[in-house]
């Protein structure tokens, strides 16, 4: 088996890639509990960054800080070199929990973000229709989310976030409830949308195989209070094969880096 020698990532400033998100000395504590401890890193424009770490290490907290749902204790997060502002930045967020809106049918759920952004109706219709085909929800437009299975429901949430064509897409364990085959398909789909639209993606996951398959770079967080254990740049060619020795080597390496049991 090939052993993997991690390259040290020194390129903090991002000399040629403009930076989308700049995180500096981010610290977040809930009362006495320190969750994130002085974290600094960049997310480059058009990059797909996976964030992995042990259970309860504050991955979700990080995303919540990024959107401003949770106020920072100290440090700063800049999006496009200014403090994050949900009214100005076009952000998409796929939540881990079921996040479809129970009183709207599938079609209206997918259109929800577009309508909030007050896009012209013809544009809303065309984008929703396109998204429905992309995630394979065409047959279910007239269903309410609670009539669907968990994995279908999550696809509705995905479609809703993809539809707004965000510059910054945050995904919190989006495929946790799905099985391999569907996950493969949706992983490829995220990748495709990211390439087409030049979206910057921050992808939080527990699944290391998924992280290695998707990421341009993996950020490994440590146990609470979290710091960055390691940054792993992945330059395997695509489409990646999960049984290729290099792939398996990186996967094992990241698993070791998390070392949580």
């Amino acid at each position, binding site marked *: 088996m090939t052993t993997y020698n991690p390259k040290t990532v020194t390129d903090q400033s991002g000399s040629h890639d403009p930076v989308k998100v700049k995180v500096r000395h981010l610290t977040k504590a809930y009362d006495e509990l320190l969750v994130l401890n002085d974290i600094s890193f960049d997310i480059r424009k058009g990059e797909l960054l996976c964030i992995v770490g042990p259970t309860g290490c504050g991955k979700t907290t990080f995303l919540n800080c990024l959107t401003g749902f949770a106020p920072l204790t100290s440090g700063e997060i800049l999006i496009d070199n200014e403090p994050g502002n949900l009214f100005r930045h076009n952000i998409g967020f796929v939540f881990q929990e079921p996040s479809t809106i129970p009183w709207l049918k599938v079609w209206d759920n997918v259109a929800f973000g577009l309508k909030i952004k007050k896009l012209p109706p013809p544009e809303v219709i065309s984008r929703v229709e396109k998204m429905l085909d992309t995630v*394979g929800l065409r047959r279910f437009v007239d269903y309410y989310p609670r009539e669907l299975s968990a994995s279908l429901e999550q696809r509705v949430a995905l479609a809703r976030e993809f539809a707004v064509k965000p510059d910054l897409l945050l995904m919190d364990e989006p495929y*946790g409830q799905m099985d*391999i085959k*569907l996950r493969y398909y949706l992983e490829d789909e995220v990748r495709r949308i990211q390439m087409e639209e030049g979206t910057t993606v921050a992808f939080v996951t527990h*699944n290391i195989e998924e992280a290695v398959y998707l990421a341009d770079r993996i950020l490994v967080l440590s146990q609470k209070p979290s710091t960055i254990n390691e940054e792993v740049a992945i330059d395997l060619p695509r489409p990646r094969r999960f*049984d290729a020795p290099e792939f*398996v080597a990186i996967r*094992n390496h990241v698993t070791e880096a*998390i070392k949580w049991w």
Partner: protein
Amino acid sequence: MDDYILSCQDLTVSFKDSEPPVLRGLTLGVRENEFLVILGPGQCGKTVFLNCLAGLQLPTEGAVYYRHNKVVGPGRERGVVFQKYALFPWQTVLGNVAWGLKSQGVSKEKRRAIALKYIQLVGLSGFENAYPQTLSGGMKQRVGLARAYATGPKVLLMDEPFGALDAQTRYAMENELLILWEKEKRTVIFVTNNIEEAVFLGDRVILMSARPGRIKIEREILIPHPRSYTDPTFLALRQEISAETDLAL
């Protein structure tokens, strides 16, 4: 069907006459101390099948046999671990684990001793007097395992026990389940929709198809324990089974 501990013959279940049956003509035997995994997409009738084996659901046609006896209801020789934990919220961990023993008329001290033994075995010592809703998902399912083990069943039926846990907790629980199983050998029938989990755990994997539910393929898994998720044989087998599933799971 002689050497099978639990078997079913032409099992068919339909709820409404107008719809195709949920299960059609399932015939299957489980050997003693075997770890059998039943793999299938959502809504393929796995849970209904497990309920039939448990005796909670009576088949429309066909029958389930424990050794040579027809199953007509739940029985002490078959324990169940439920997907949604199904712990009694008004009982402590100890009370939950000892619950089934009380029905068997075991004396109070003995109940306590047995329950404590299994609580310790699943690594929950110190939480005996906690109420379930204060525990995390993984811990709840440990209680579920201990409770099923405590009544001393010969066959353990597990209905997607780790389905609601996150990936890392699931890996840990899978490992612990195998350790427990090595220590206290039982026949296990484990239902899941996760291919990786199926290949990791099972001696034999049965893939079901949906509507009507029936057996699609069957694979013996001969990789020795402890298995590695990244072993090439493991990945190949996973891919092979994945290729057989035609639906989004």
